[in-house]
């Protein structure tokens, strides 16, 4: 049994860097995207083998699911812009690419290789050195966390660290995500599409089946996060997947979401998190020091709110722009790569 799993690990460890290299070295964008999706899958399996199911869950949702769709939609938009004829085959395009680089580029290569190799070695050495310097690196912080689990309010150690012991970090991460959405929104508006167009029957059925299921699973992941792998981020990512699917299908419901509601959903998580953190100080405690035995309730409350916001934020990032002005209620709210997407192929 152990031997088989050992062999499994070896295959995984060999395949991962090779796949990563092929992905980076690929001259064809589409193939790189497909390789990226595959890499996400192997990465998730690797996290499982490293006994980190929380990370594996996040990687499964983000790496293999959301990012793949994001890249494919971005690629689609790029191709439209450049009027590329790379439609169904990638063979022709590749030859063209290889004729383009002039001899000049080849000449600069050895120096660049040596330099990046040198920097890489320095970086790895620095990383190793700093790991040795870190206090607690010897035995890890596991025992310290395990010792405090009683007052964390949850059973999952990861959730305890993320939302109780180091809640401050998570609060800042939420702000970073919020800023990312603000950044995208400040760049552009989403593109308009024609209304009243329906997705094809296959896509419509898929949406009808999958979206409710995704929402249920998102809620399940948030709930289960208090006792084992799961949590706001994983739940939010699955929720975002539902949003992306709706955007892809360009269903009418998505367009009828008022922009104001969208903004509130975006702010909900960071705002409630921040208010809770400050409210904790009202009782004489420190920032994010949940009063008494109520930590579990507070954590679930914050996680539910942040999951909604993470879901909306990620979906908004996918849409790639702020909704049109509220003064134009007829216009679409969340469009983007999904907007250019014209309804279910050959309906």
């Amino acid at each position, binding site marked *: 049994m152990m031997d088989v799993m050992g062999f499994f690990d070896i295959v995984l460890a060999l395949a991962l860097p090779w796949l990563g290299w092929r992905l980076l070295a690929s001259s064809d964008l589409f193939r790189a995207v497909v390789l990226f999706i595959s890499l996400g899958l192997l990465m998730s399996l690797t996290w499982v083998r490293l006994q980190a199911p929380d990370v594996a869950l996040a990687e499964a949702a983000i790496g293999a*699911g959301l990012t793949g769709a994001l890249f494919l939609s971005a690629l689609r938009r790029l191709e439209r812009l450049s009027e590329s004829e790379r439609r169904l085959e990638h063979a022709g395009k590749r030859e063209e690419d290889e004729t383009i680089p002039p001899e000049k580029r080849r000449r600069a290569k050895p120096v660049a290789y040596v330099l990046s190799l040198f920097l890489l070695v320095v970086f790895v050495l620095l990383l190793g050195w700093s790991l040795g310097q870190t206090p607690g690196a010897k035995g890890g912080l596991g025992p310290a966390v395990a010792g405090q689990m009683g007052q964390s309010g949850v059973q999952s150690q990861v959730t305890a660290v993320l939302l109780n012991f180091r809640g401050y970090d998570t609060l800042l991460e939420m702000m970073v995500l919020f800023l990312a959405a603000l950044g995208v929104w400040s760049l552009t508006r989403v593109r308009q599409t024609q209304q009243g167009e329906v997705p094809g029957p296959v896509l419509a059925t898929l949406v009808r089946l999958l979206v409710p299921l995704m929402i249920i699973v998102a809620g399940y992941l948030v709930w289960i996060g208090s006792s084992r792998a799961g949590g706001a981020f994983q739940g939010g990512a699955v929720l975002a997947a539902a949003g992306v699917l709706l955007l892809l299908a360009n269903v009418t419901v998505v367009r009828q979401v008022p922009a104001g509601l969208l903004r509130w959903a975006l702010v909900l998580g960071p705002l409630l998190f921040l208010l809770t953190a400050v409210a904790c100080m009202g009782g004489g405690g420190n920032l994010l020091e949940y009063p008494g035995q109520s930590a579990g309730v507070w954590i679930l409350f914050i996680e539910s709110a942040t999951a909604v916001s993470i879901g909306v934020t990620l979906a908004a990032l996918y849409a790639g722009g702020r909704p049109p002005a509220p003064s134009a209620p007829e216009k679409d709210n969340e469009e983007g790569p999904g907007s250019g997407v*014209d309804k279910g192929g050959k309906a």
Partner: protein
Amino acid sequence: MSGLYSLAALCLLLAVLAGLVRILRGPTEADSMLAAQLFGTCGVAILLLLSKGLDWVVLQDIALVFALLAALAAVAFALRTWGGTER
């Protein structure tokens, strides 16, 4: 018995690697995409087998997320390749 599950998981991992040939070779983009979709299916199977073999229930959740989100890339691909260009 758990050894059997691990062995099956290993076989599926090797099958995934064999599928990489289709991604790298093509010949069409649809072949690459379908190979990636096959990876998703294999990944779900591997996770479920490991969940049985290692007696670790959490892996079923990961398999669930995989299964749910695998369709997303396929939809994006289908729209990209066959979605209307005329509009």
